[in-house]
């Protein structure tokens, strides 16, 4: 049996995902202003995987969910209203994950945020251009696709240090080394966390299967493949890519399944970079946080 934290322990330890500390003052100012719009709130929340996860989680809780799951951030904001959002922001402020150095994936501060943002932007772009998935859902799925990595880095960094030693030899794929050392991988953590939080099936399937879409039997296969393609693009562009990033296998069968081609995906990249330029400065600062 592994001496490292079990999957259930990791999930228990990371039951709440706090957002980046810098995002909260701006969100608080908006929430306490007299004329806040849903669009203004959305523009802030969409920049942070931790806060987006918290908002979705609350919108899908028993109290707010009614009979319908909430898949996009804009719908979640409408469902919650400013009072609940304000409460959530205060609660999130207590969290301090991202104030601490996060070990395990070689991340610099803010790397996960930048990477997740790029995956979200690319997923939204591919959904819009292909018409194969809802762009708002694709953006949200991209933003929270690696929430399990954040949890693992926080709760089991010692285990990840051992994982690192086994990549690329004997394990050329990071996920396989995680399974060998820990007995589970970051996608398993994502699945458990998102299930526990009652998030919609589509978002859970993406976080669970985006690494190799063609191996699963997802009901939301186009969405999962789009996030896989978006993940590959974001990795190629380098935004927030840690030590594990390039030890990720491209699922070419899945990309071909949606008739994506190398040329078409490359052609998307300039537009994705233009969009990222509006969100992140050249030195990596997320614009809305400054």
């Amino acid at each position: 049996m592994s001496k490292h934290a079990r999957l259930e322990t990791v999930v228990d330890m990371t039951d709440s995902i706090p957002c980046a500390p810098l995002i909260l003052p701006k969100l608080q100012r908006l929430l306490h202003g007299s004329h806040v719009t849903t669009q203004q709130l959305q523009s802030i929340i969409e920049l942070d995987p931790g806060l987006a996860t918290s908002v979705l989680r609350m919108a899908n809780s028993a109290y707010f969910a009614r009979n319908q799951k909430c898949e996009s951030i804009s719908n979640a904001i409408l469902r919650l209203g400013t009072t609940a959002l304000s409460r959530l922001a205060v609660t999130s402020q207590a969290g301090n994950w991202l104030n601490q150095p996060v070990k395990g994936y070689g991340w610099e501060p803010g790397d996960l945020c930048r990477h997740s943002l790029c995956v979200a932007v690319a997923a939204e772009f591919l959904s819009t251009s292909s018409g194969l998935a809802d762009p708002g859902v694709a953006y949200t799925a991209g933003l929270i696709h690696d929430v399990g990595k954040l949890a693992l880095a926080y709760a089991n960094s010692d285990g990840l240090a051992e994982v690192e030693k086994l990549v690329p030899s004997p394990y050329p794929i990071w996920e396989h080394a995680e399974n060998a050392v820990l007995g589970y991988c970051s996608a398993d953590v994502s699945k458990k966390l998102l299930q526990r939080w009652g998030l919609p099936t589509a978002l859970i399937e993406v976080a669970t299967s985006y690494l190799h879409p063609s191996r699963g039997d997802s009901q939301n296969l186009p969405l999962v493949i789009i996030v896989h393609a978006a993940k590959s693009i974001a990795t190629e562009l380098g935004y927030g890519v840690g030590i594990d990033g390039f030890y990720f296998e491209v699922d070419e069968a899945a990309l071909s399944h949606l008739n994506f081609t190398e040329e078409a995906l490359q052609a998307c990249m300039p537009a994705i970079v233009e969009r990222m330029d509006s969100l992140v400065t050249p030195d990596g600062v997320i614009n809305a946080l400054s």
Partner: protein
Amino acid sequence: MPDPSITSQSFTSQKQGLVVGVADMVVSTDPDEVLVTYALGSCLGITLHDPTKCIGGLLHLMLPDSQLHSRTTVRPAMFLDTGLPLLLKTMLDAGADEGALRCKVFGGAQLLSADQFFRIGAQNVEACYKLTAALSLRVLVWEVSGRVNRTIRMSNRTGEVRVRVPARPEFIR
């Protein structure tokens, strides 16, 4: 000594140096300047340096061939075939001697098992070998390929480039 001058589409000057974004470039004649670009991924970071005049330039390009992307907004630094000639011209316009120029190439990381898709790193490196030869550039360093995300900082005084990759000690090339 020439007046410090800077040419760039967009940059952020901070204590850590002139920061070059994706698909952008900068040239500086200030010997005390440091030129920086973050997280190259499969992109290439190409430095040109004139050691006698302490003039340096840095290009962060994304893709090899602008001809395949004719519909996109014109942004020469996005592509190798338009960005590198522009960097060279800007260096010469800033007073660098062509014969003294030293070139270093970084980045071009490659995803696993990418036979048909996402071979951008390899394509960038291959095209860069050809173009630097065609331009008769003297390339001293090829710190390329592999599966690492590189951040680079060039000292305009020495031309030395500090390379940082996740979870590893920084090194100089």
